[in-house]
């Protein structure tokens, strides 16, 4: 890196504190107005948008769930026909997995990870802006198609041949496959940004063993994304090729193989579960500290458990295929590897129990959600052990038992921590506290409603109710429990409504938050609530795993960064010793143009293979514009 020759450099050591913050605010600002909003590369603004959009998709997916429960409350109900119902359950699954759960976890990290590692912006901030627009376009594609009665109707894992050219006529399955393309692009982009941010932009002194557990979780998750997504890229692309240009990857009549789809899908699909779950347990390990009022017990064990889960995640996919007719001995190997997941999960649960045991719990809403998480997630984990057993699985596979199982894992295991995290980090994002009374009410409604809704589904599954049926006949003994489940879903819905009301009310009228309202130990609490555009006036220097607890009089800081251009500190991977001052890109409208060009190409390619040829031209133009040297400071360094 060479110093700029032309203008005299302005460093943070040369100016007074007041001038320093003014200068930084000017350098890092997002101009007001529409153009500024579209061109911003501030990770906090993009992270907030991401989180907000993901919660909109959560609400929409919840409406679909409510419709399904109304339909299933009575046998042979005629509220929804089979065609609509099949679209609805496919939309519910695809929406919740691809548009809510994965993006929301990455979104929280887009906002928090740079703050928690003490840097000024995420790595590759323009890519970050691009990833949000692509995600938004993918979500809009899916929902607009659904509104036009073109929503996918083949289930969220779109098994061939049902989703193939012969049986999945129309454009419904293509829309599903192309929505996958959008979300995989955005998820891969964020994963790369997070890996680089966490590896290279940590505050000086934040050695590997001083990284907050949530950040560790996001690091492991990002690697999972990078390694799992290529399988689904391959799967969805070859499906589109089968459908659009008549290849035969999945056509058994022409030498294709329908089980190939299942292998490729689940090689991605199982790690996908951990892509959702690991950030959630990272949140728990991080949030538990201020509410137990002691450091999380077993930091090394918690981090190793995350890494172990991440590695094991790639060795389990066949347990989704236990009844597909693979050799039994091979199946049994995957029983063993699936059961082994219980070990790192167990380590984490025992560490949290130990933390609570030795700590002094503060019963605020985030802790309630953590407690609710432990109670429900253990059920989901144990039913996971059950379905890992081949013989057990032959009776419950593709039944409501499995529906119950994965909702215990995903809602109990990931959404409960996420809701806790919203209560916990809301003051940092907005500068206002959420209402504690409403928070406690929504917790209890959600906790009771969730268990009353999903626990009976275990029994329904054992009583022979398959999943994905739009109705059932009156002479089957399922209507009592189904009615109970549907009524309980009202309680669950009320809980979520109250949560959303609390968020909206608190964002406007909530009590003004202090910088560190929970007395938490990690770096994001060392700046103001909400943080300024430059995050930290001076980059903090970290001497322990709990810097804010251990340096109560204020953290030591690193100086020497320029204030007249966007700069941040790059540190070494393992020991976080400062290596260089690195320029950080300025706001740019080009990521938006690139996203629009990509969107046009991808949607067009649902209808014509030529879209890939002609559509690549505007995409190339947008990329050239994006990377064109404009004489801005980051081009010079």
């Amino acid at each position, binding site marked *: 890196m060479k110093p700029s020759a032309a203008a005299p450099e302005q460093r943070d050591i040369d100016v007074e504190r007041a001038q320093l913050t003014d200068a930084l605010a000017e350098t890092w600002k997002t101009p007001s107005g529409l153009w500024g909003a579209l061109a911003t590369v501030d990770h906090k603004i993009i992270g907030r948008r991401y989180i907000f959009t993901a919660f909109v998709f959560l609400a929409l997916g919840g409406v679909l769930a409510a419709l399904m429960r109304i339909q299933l409350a009575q046998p042979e109900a005629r509220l929804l*026909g*089979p*065609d609509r119902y*099949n679209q609805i359950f496919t939309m519910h699954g695809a929406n919740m997995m691809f548009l809510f759960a994965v993006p929301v976890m990455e979104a929280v990290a887009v906002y928090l990870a740079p703050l928690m590692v003490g840097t000024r912006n995420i790595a590759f901030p323009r890519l970050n802006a691009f990833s949000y627009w692509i995600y938004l376009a993918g979500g809009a594609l899916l929902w607009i198609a659904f509104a036009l009665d073109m929503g996918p109707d*083949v*289930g969220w894992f779109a098994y061939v*041949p*049902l989703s193939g050219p012969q*049986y999945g006529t129309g454009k419904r399955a293509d829309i599903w496959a192309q929505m996958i393309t959008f979300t995989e692009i955005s998820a891969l982009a964020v994963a790369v940004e997070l890996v680089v941010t966490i590896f290279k932009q940590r505050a000086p002194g934040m050695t590997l063993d001083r990284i907050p557990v949530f950040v560790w979780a996001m690091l492991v998750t990002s690697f999972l994304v990078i390694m799992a997504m290529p399988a689904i890229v391959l799967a969805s692309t070859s499906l589109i090729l089968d459908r659009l240009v008549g290849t035969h990857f999945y056509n*058994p009549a022409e030498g*294709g*193989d*329908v089980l190939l789809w299942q292998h490729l899908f689940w090689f991605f699909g199982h790690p996908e579960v951990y892509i959702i779950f690991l950030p959630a347990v990272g949140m728990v390990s991080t949030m538990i500290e201020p509410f137990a009022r002691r450091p999380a*017990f*077993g930091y090394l064990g918690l981090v190793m458990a995350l890494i172990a889960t991440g590695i094991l995640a790639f060795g389990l996919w066949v347990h989704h295929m236990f*009844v*597909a*007719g693979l050799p*039994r001995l091979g*199946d*049994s190997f995957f*029983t063993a590897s699936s*059961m082994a997941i*219980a*070990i790192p999960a*167990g*380590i984490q649960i*025992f560490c949290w*129990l*130990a933390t609570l*045991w*030795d700590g002094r*719990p503060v*019963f605020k809403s985030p802790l309630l959600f953590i*407690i609710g998480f*432990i*109670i429900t997630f*253990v059920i989901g984990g*144990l039913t996971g*052990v059950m379905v*890992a*057993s*081949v*013989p*057990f699985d*032959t*009776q419950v*596979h*593709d039944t409501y038992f499995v529906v119950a199982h994965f909702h215990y894992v995903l809602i109990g295991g990931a959404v409960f921590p996420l809701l806790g995290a919203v209560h916990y980090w809301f003051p940092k994002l907005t500068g206002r506290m959420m209402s504690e009374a409403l928070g406690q009410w929504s917790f209890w409604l959600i906790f009771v409603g969730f268990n009353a809704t999903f626990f009976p589904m275990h029994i329904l599954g*054992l*009583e*022979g109710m*398959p*999943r*994905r*049926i739009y109705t*059932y006949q009156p*002479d*089957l*003994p399922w209507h009592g429990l189904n009615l109970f489940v549907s009524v309980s879903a009202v309680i669950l819905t009320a809980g979520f409504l109250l949560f959303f009301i609390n968020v909206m009310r608190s964002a406007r009228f909530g009590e003004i938050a202090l910088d560190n309202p929970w007395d938490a130990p990690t770096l994001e609490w060392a700046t103001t609530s909400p943080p300024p555009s430059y995050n930290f006036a001076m980059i903090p220097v970290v001497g322990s795993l709990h810097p804010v607890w251990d340096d109560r009089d204020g953290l030591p800081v690193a100086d020497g960064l320029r204030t007249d251009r966007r700069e941040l500190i790059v540190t070494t991977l393992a020991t976080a010793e400062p290596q260089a001052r690195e320029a950080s890109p300025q706001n740019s409208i080009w990521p938006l143009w690139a996203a629009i060009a990509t969107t046009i190409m991808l949607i067009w390619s649902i209808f014509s293979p030529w879209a890939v040829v002609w559509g690549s031209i505007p995409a190339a133009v947008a990329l050239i514009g994006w990377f064109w040297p404009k004489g801005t400071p980051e081009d010079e360094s």
Partner: protein
Amino acid sequence: MIRAARKACSSAMLAAPLAGCGGNWQSALDVYGTSAISLKHLIILIVAVCSLVWMLVLIALIAALWRSRDARPVSPEPGRERRMTIAVTGAVVATVLIIGTFTVMSFVATRALTVAGQDDLTIRVRGLQWWWGLEYIGPDPSSRFETANEIHIPVGRKVRLKLEGLDVIHSFWVPSLAGKQDLVPGRPNELTIRAEHAGIYRGQCAEFCGMQHAHMSLLVIAEPQDDFDKWTATQRQTAAQPADEQTAAGLQTFLAKPCAACHTIRGTAAVGTTGPDLTHVGNRRTIAAGLFETTRGSLAAWIADPQTIKPGNNMPMVPLTPDELRAVSAYLASLK
């Protein structure tokens, strides 16, 4: 109580039509097949152990929250940390032991999925959108016959099911008899079943297969060997000749209209293979893959408007006059 009532029902049901009885058995907990019985033992054992584990975690959680709710914060101290390390390690070791045991148990129980012993009865089960095609394969070609949606098996004998998906993936699942197995296009699978008790066992497609996945059920009727032999003898015969004017008119209509293009009635000119074989449809307990009990009325309703009754299915509505409709349904009902 319910169980006792169902038991009482089971013997009555052999003779009585299906709807007369309270229960269709389709439950992994209400088991009458060799492998389903051993699977139920495994399920109960694993659920019991897991429930115990959950209770222990819950107790630990409550104790952890209760013991120090009002105390002052204290900083970690090496002695306590060491004791906690020992406790956590112990819990992890216990986890390893439990899941190790489960893995071995489940490996052993995998054998129960295949019923041991000789088999001389093989049935080809073909999954189609949205019904089950059945072909009984006997020792010699003359003993073969086709039927649909209703499998008869002799009690106490091992039966081999050859499972083939002809269009999309389906899954054969009669939980009271055995665990499920997918019917995968291009990859034939097998499942062996044995009913320990006579009875009617309901099953249903368990892999999402499109519009009418919800209405793709089947019945397995396990009956004593004598009854089974009588049934197979009937099934091998060609269709009964029309006995009166109305049923004769019904056959004429069936052959004149598009019906015969898709359905076979052995002994007549109807040789279509797209839809179920109807040679003895009047003898089957249900029509439309378990949707209705077979009666003249239900047959007439089904033929009159299959798309309202089972939207999306592959049977088109064939315009018939009221007389034709009455004749065809009378004829089909007479095909015992």
